[in-house]
């Protein structure tokens, strides 16, 4: 597509439930990133996929968080047993290989609210 698409745009869930957030990157972009944006905290790196290489998971805050990228395209970020501190905007971005030279293209994000 023309841009990075994320769904849903908003998600309200009960504490303890699992949620899945989806990211559809720009066609041809081999790199995909997930960031979390909390109020007043800036952007926190979560995970990075590059082609068929093993993902860089070093930013995932706990083992309740996981992500996969199927076929080198769509990615799903899963949060199990959600907690209130998981409430944030989850942003996905994609880029060409070595894409940081060119910057990222961000999606509009998924606003997650855990009640």
């Amino acid at each position, binding site marked *: 597509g023309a841009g*990075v698409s994320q769904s849903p745009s908003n998600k309200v869930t009960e504490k303890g439930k699992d949620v899945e957030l989806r990211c559809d990157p720009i066609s041809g972009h081999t*790199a995909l*990133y997930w*960031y979390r944006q909390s109020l*007043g*905290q*800036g*952007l926190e*790196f979560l995970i*990075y996929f*590059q082609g068929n290489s093993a993902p*860089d998971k070093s930013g995932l805050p706990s083992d309740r968080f996981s992500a996969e990228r199927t076929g080198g395209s769509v990615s799903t970020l899963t949060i199990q047993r959600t907690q209130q501190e998981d409430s944030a905007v989850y*942003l996905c*971005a994609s880029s060409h290989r*070595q*894409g*940081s*030279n*060119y*910057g*990222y*293209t*961000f*999606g*509009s*994000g998924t606003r997650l609210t855990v009640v």
Partner: protein
Amino acid sequence: AQSVAQPEDQVNVAEGNPLTVKCTYSVSGNPYLFWYVQYPNRGLQFLLKYITGDNLVKGSYGFEAEFNKSQTSFHLKKPSALVSDSALYFCAVRDMGYGNNRLAFGKGNQVVVIP
């Protein structure tokens, strides 16, 4: 590890006046530097980048930024602010070290342009 500091939470400026948003960075090697802007309920939009070459970089919407290696700064500037420039601005840095594809973001600066 790379990091970015944006020392001011909010920048208020009168319409028509010069706008400056400050950013300092820390990397072990040479930096790639970026500015992004975020409008309400939107993803981040790329404004400009410094990779190499001229220290003064020009970007979208009349913005520019100056790379200062000795001061490790990359301040964003616009000669004459518009009300429509009111948004959240993020500075980001990537260490050019091999294998590092991650951008580190600052916490963001809210810019308010007063009519």
